[in-house]
């Protein structure tokens, strides 16, 4: 809960600076990722989901988020990162992407960082689990590499199967 407050205060201060953006930093297995903090609505514990028939494995199902029926995706399964365990420390980042609410299961949320745009490094030509078109760039923090994800593009993509294909362009 305290994390939530922390988030919202960061959110407000983040709007003023143009040359930098704030990122929420989360971990998937041993890797560290970041996404635009303004896309995050809240962070909550993983709870019971209702499975939906004939959907990909990484779509865990739907949950009741205060009356809204919200899909939950597990990024660890999607990116083939480690074992997808579900326990009390499993975290769901609830994203609000152009008014569509999506829950994203991650191993943990570590920080919110302000990263200067100039600090971003381009992605080297390596094989990644994640299609390079969904990556904004790489950043380094405390000797750790952070992969910054264009979450809006990723969640709206065909491969996430979260949106009716008729709506995709």
């Amino acid at each position, binding site marked *: 809960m305290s994390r939530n407050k922390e988030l919202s205060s960061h959110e407000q201060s983040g709007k003023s600076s143009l040359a930098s953006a704030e990122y929420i930093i989360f971990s998937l297995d041993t890797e560290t990722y970041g996404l635009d903090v303004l896309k995050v609505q809240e962070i909550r514990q993983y709870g*019971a*989901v*209702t*499975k*939906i*028939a*004939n*959907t990909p494995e990484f779509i865990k*199902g*739907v*949950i*009741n988020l*205060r*009356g*809204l*029926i*919200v*899909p939950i995706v597990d990024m660890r399964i999607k990116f083939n990162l480690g074992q997808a365990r579900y326990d009390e420390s499993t975290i769901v980042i609830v994203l609000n992407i152009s008014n*569509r*609410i*999506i829950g994203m299961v991650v191993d943990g949320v570590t920080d919110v960082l302000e990263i200067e745009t100039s600090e971003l490094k381009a992605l080297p030509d390596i094989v990644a689990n994640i299609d390079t078109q969904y990556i904004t760039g790489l950043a380094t923090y405390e000797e750790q590499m952070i992969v910054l994800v264009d979450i809006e593009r990723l969640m709206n993509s065909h491969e996430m*199967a*979260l*949106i*009716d294909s008729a709506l995709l362009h």
Partner: protein
Amino acid sequence: MTIDINQFAQIFFEEAGELLAEAEQLLLSIDVLNPDAEQLNAIFRAAHSIKGGSATFGLNEISAVTHELETLLDRIRKGELPLQEIHVDLFLLTKDVIESLLNNYQNGIANDSALVQDIISQLQAIAPTASVEKNKSTCAPSPNREENVYEIELPASYVAEINDLQGELAILGEVALVEQKEEHFVLSLLTEENEQSIVSICAFIVDTKDLKITRLTNSALKRQADTPNENLGYGFFEPLTFSGENIESDEKTVDLSPVVLAQRRQKPTVQGKIEKIMSQKELSSIRVEVEKIDLLINLVGELIITQSMIEQQVSLLDQKTHINLINSINQLTRNTRDLQESALSIRMMPMNYVFSRFPRMVHDLSARLGKQTTLVMTGATTELDKSLIERIVDPLTHLFRNCIDHGIEMPAIRKQLGKSEAGNLTLSATNRGSHIVIEVSDDGAGLDRQLILNKALSRGLNVSEKMSDNEVWQLIFAPGFSTAEVVTEVSGRGFGMDVVKQNIGAMGGTIMVKSARGYGMSVTISLPLTLAIMRGMTVALGDNVYVIPMSLIIETLRPQVEEIKTVTGQGLMVSVRGEYIPIIVLHALFNQKTEITNPCKGVLVIVETDDKKAAILVDALLGQQQVVIKSLETHFKRIPGLSGATIMADGLVALILDVPAILQSGQHQYSSGAKQ
């Protein structure tokens, strides 16, 4: 800041629609020989409001038609012209024309100007002396009436609107253009009304801030008559202020650029109109967006769930030590239930909204077909969900057409048969638990069993003489089925009843026909009260809970081994009292893990849609309950086989089965996955 006038157009269209409906009701109920002055006034006001609004939005054709209507109505309400039946008919026709014009404007369709001209000339023709020359300048006030002479001074920028303004003011009394100068012009008005009425009339055309109204005292009037050219405003008149604006200083703004001026004029005009609408409506209702209501209903639904979670926790506590807590929770339970009920009732609208249009339709149609009918309507106050109210109109209209065209006999035949010459039509709505039952019935000829059977045979339908009456009546819902001997303009073209059935089905309702030859027929429609809530059977499948709409369930059963049959070793069938029904193996369809794969260990839920039956195999029945239907598409996407989701008392999501889609998507394909 510029105001986009179009954002108010929708309000105008809605308002105009309501006003027209109201005017029609009044017209139909008016006593021609002895008209009630208040009713005439109300019709007049409706016409006037529509005229003002349409002029504001530049809908010139509507304002032209309403202007003529208003002129005629005005003479009638002033007693200059006696009200006659032809007037009422013409007014009704005018109402239809205005309605179609409104529709055209709303949908951006070009109007038929010939139609407009035609109705205008009809309106003019009916009142031959309607266009009385009123430019007779101010005459002395008659001693018997409390008439006053007002002078209305306006900046010259309104010159273009002089004629409109004169037309408007003529409603109040006699108007004349007294003076026209470069910077301003003056109209005089002899009227019984007060200055407030003048302001509100003018508000449709001009900015009230630019208005300067002065009441001429008798002496001033005399004086003015003596020296007509003398300038105004020297102590004889009492300048009237109305909006707290400084009129004098406002006049200086005349030399503003035309654009700014246009904005200045438009803005308050529109606001004036909106305020007027609001103040009229405030008394009885407020306009709220449906989305806001849905949000409220959602939140209340959440509250109910949270509340039942607390209730569950509390029930585990020791009764004695926590008696106060338990009592409070019980209180809370009652309050939340009441809250939910009233929140849901916001979406409810009285059936009167639908009913009100039928007297007119029946009246017109009977007249056209040369038949006589009496329409009796009961239960107009019964309430139904707004979304259903809108969709029930077409099916009911269709049923009425059928009744009048095919059901009710011609007066002469009715007399021979010993019936009253006028056919009786009834429309009733009653509330039955979570359903509303709407019945349309007539005392006409009724359905002809033999004719229907012959027709069905000739169309190659599978029928036999042994079929029960009910089964025969169901045939009229078959696509393209009509027994009308003559195809008329009104009905009998062979489409209709199937559409009615489809529409009702789409609303989650059912339709039933009863008929007796020679005594009439009645059609009963049963609809759920709301689309947002449904009665559902909750069933277990593996560790998931699914909801099956109760309205589709015929029965549930656990079959015996010998009742399960296979077709070509794959497709499963169950024999229910001699009838073979295909089994849909839900866990196979949904790829869901479950312990129960043998139909004899699980439960079969027999469902029926569109005369197709199927037995859905589930693990177990959990219970029946009201569920709040939520869309999966809002944040996710459409999932084949599911029509939505709902939230159970434990806060978990249960999925609602889309039974018609499951039945349609080929039963054999899915049942093949079953293992016995």
